[in-house]
């Protein structure tokens, strides 16, 4: 019989070990899933985890890793701030879309003016768009005590509706022969988010992600606000005793995660995606939730987790095209990762004892 015994102090070794264990378990369970789909599990797992890094097309795929990891890290770090404080922004996808629409609108409004101020202005607008969208659940929560999980999640679908309106209506390319989608930013140098070093996938969004990871790390480790965020998440009553004002924390955490998601959207739409289209958003806002937990809500861990998740994206696409795996199977695979992570998390707070001698009834 197995018995769980609460550890007096959470195990540090397991806190870092559980993500690796979760990846391993995901490979095993995912392999079983792929085998049941009639594919060679070893080949699939190798295609997902090995080929993008060291396989035949790695020179191209490696660049894709940063392209995918950048927005994931940017969004996940923002979400992690809130999650640490017990504030659950589930609607990053919506904030990401709204950031893209706000930023793109600024750029498209001044098309075809050339100025070096245009792109910075678009960045600000992108962050503002995401912040504004996150302020809706924030204010509803602080004023009326609504549930931010539901409100932020529902606002994703509102944002998606606005996005389709933008792509087919107010942001549609007037020279696009009636096809949905905005002008392509790749042909508008002042508003473009270019690849900074050819072949690496490094663009301004990735740079921003690195900066945000460092800033968030410093905030959480060294700054009073970061301490208050952690305190509020772990012991809300102690936080009030320490003088933390919960409402301010809600505003800050939702605002910061919204703004970062908005930035990610702006960088995506002006760079890798290139234009506002009905489905330019790739679900990064939702995947970032997995990334945040996989990275243990720790900024550095999130960076690593974002790279891992990017690997499953890139490798998963490879597996889908080369091995004919349904794309839903890849999403199940990513979901498994979160599932196993949460499941093995128990190890960092509990010690597993194999106990045959437990006879005592309480």
């Amino acid at each position, binding site marked *: 019989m197995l018995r769980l015994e609460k550890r*007096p*102090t*959470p195990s540090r070794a397991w806190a870092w070990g559980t993500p690796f264990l979760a990846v391993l378990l995901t490979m095993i369970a995912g392999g079983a899933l792929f085998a049941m789909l009639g594919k060679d599990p070893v080949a699939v797992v190798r295609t997902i985890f090995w080929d993008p890094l060291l396989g035949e097309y790695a020179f191209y795929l490696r660049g894709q890793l940063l392209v995918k990891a950048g927005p994931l890290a940017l969004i996940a770090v923002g979400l992690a701030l809130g999650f640490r404080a017990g504030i659950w922004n589930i609607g990053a996808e919506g904030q990401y879309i709204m950031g893209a629409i706000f930023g793109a609108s600024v750029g498209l409004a001044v098309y075809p003016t050339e100025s070096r101020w245009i792109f910075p202005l678009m960045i600000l607008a992108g962050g503002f768009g995401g912040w504004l969208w996150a302020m809706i659940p924030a204010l509803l929560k602080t004023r009326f005590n609504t549930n931010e999980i539901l409100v932020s999640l529902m606002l994703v679908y509102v944002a998606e509706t606005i996005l389709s309106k933008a792509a087919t209506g107010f942001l549609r390319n007037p020279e696009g022969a009636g096809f949905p989608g905005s002008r392509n930013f790749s042909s508008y140098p002042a508003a473009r988010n270019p690849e900074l070093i050819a072949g690496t996938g490094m663009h301004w969004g990735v740079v921003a992600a690195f900066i945000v990871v460092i800033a968030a790390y410093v905030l959480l480790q*060294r*700054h*009073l*606000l970061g*301490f208050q965020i*952690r*305190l509020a998440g*772990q*012991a809300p*009553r*102690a*936080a*009030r*005793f*320490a*003088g933390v*004002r919960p409402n301010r924390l809600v505003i800050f955490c939702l605002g910061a995660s919204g703004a970062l998601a908005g930035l990610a959207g702006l960088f995506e739409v002006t760079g890798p995606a290139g234009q506002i289209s009905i489905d330019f958003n790739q679900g990064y806002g939702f995947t970032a939730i997995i990334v945040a937990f996989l990275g243990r809500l720790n900024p550095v861990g999130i960076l690593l987790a974002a790279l891992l998740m990017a690997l499953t994206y890139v490798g998963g696409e490879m597996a889908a095209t080369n091995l004919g795996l349904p794309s839903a199977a890849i999403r199940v695979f990513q979901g498994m990762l979160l599932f196993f992570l949460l499941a093995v998390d128990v190890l960092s707070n509990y010690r597993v004892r194999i106990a045959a001698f437990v*006879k*005592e*009834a*309480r």
Partner: protein
Amino acid sequence: MTQDISADVLLAIEGIGKSYPGVRANDDVTFRIGAGEVHALLGENGAGKSTLVKMIYGLVKPDEGHMSLRGAPYAPAEPRAARAAGVAMVFQHFSLFEALNVAENVALGMDDPPPMRDLEARIREVSEGYGLPLDPARLVGDLSAGERQRVEIVRCLLQDPKLLIMDEPTSVLTPQEVEILFGTLRQLAAEGTSILYISHKLEEIRALCDAATILRRGKVVGTCVPREVSARAMAEMMVGASLNAPARATGELGPVALTVERLSVASPSAFGTSLKEVSFEVRQGEVLGIGGVAGNGQDELLAALSGEARTGRDVVRVHGRGIGHLGPNERRQAGLCTAPEERLGHAAAPDMSLVENALLSGAVRKGLVRRGFIDWPGTRAFAEAVVKTFDVRTPGTGTAARALSGGNLQKFVLGREILQEPGIIVVNQPTWGVDAAAAAFIRQALLDRAAKGAAVVVISQDIDEILEIADRFAALNEGRLSAPVPVAGLTLERIGLMLGGAHGMHKADVHAAEVAHAET
């Protein structure tokens, strides 16, 4: 031993031992309880009292040794077997359903309940027979703590026990309620029921018990006849060291430091108690003790003073300056530090290290944050100073708060506030669940702070504690505070009346109390 125990032994415990991983909870414990004897089991927290009575009640199996009841071997496999053998237990924490009435609750605890009508009649008969009147039809949710305890006791008495085990029964009672309880217990003992009475309140044991067995670290370290030795001597046996009574410096009182005027706060929780026009003043160098049975507004009063609950500006004044509208950190800046009752989760964050917990309330006064950035080396130094000065037993300041024992964490929490050298310090239940040595240390630290000119407010349910350290006493009852009176010359009876009101369970008052309940 003056008691003639060889003649008529009810329960004999021989060489009982019990180990848990890493702990020897009981080691070669031997003692006897005579028939009709009130026997005290005395010891600090963690001395092994609970494990021992759990073994007697069949909740835990001993590793070695044996017990005999009335000469026959006794080894209950489960509480049901213990009850069948005539052993009953009243737990410290009640196991009652608030939404059910008294009779239903009693029936739930019985192995073979009679029909409800018979049961109600029996409850009336037994409860009145033992001076513990209970209305079987009342909802338990409407009863006071003392009345709830009666339900538990009556539940036991209905089984006609030979041995009644009572675990810390007076911790929730007013002095008058304690007197009534003692009357009942004496009556039971006179009828031949033995009582095993667990407590660390020495004066009560001296008043009630015929014999005492003292445990320390799982072993029997002494036996005595409580009436014949002083409370101090028993405490020293319990702790294993000589205890110093807190030294009072009788200094001159300074000007008024803290003023609370007509403080009314609605409780944030549905089960809380709203404060109603609470007013008091505390002078520099003075200790004000605020007594009261739990749940009479203590938490709410502390929150209103700590700044977690805000009031009108001039309702709370520090040296004449209104601070009622300020939050906790601004109040700390003004010299008012507080320590809430609940250590884990309120005064300290369980999963955070002691260093982080030192920052929790020490940031402002110790200057641990500069331009928003935390001075971790300074915070660590502060935490280490608290650990050192207040003798907090911990592997290091990096240890999580939840890994500390209750007494050690309480020393840390109080040390954290006291080392900030506040002009005013307010503590709620400073020694709750703390062993005698740590409690003495904490009380002394509070008195020392007062001697240095601080105004000290001690909110406590422990009347002995208040009598020991307070200069003046006020009682909190259903959110109202009595006018503070000097402690010198105060009788227990007077205190009980101040605490009591609707809680006063004088037999004559029961009717009045029930009327009061009906009104509320």
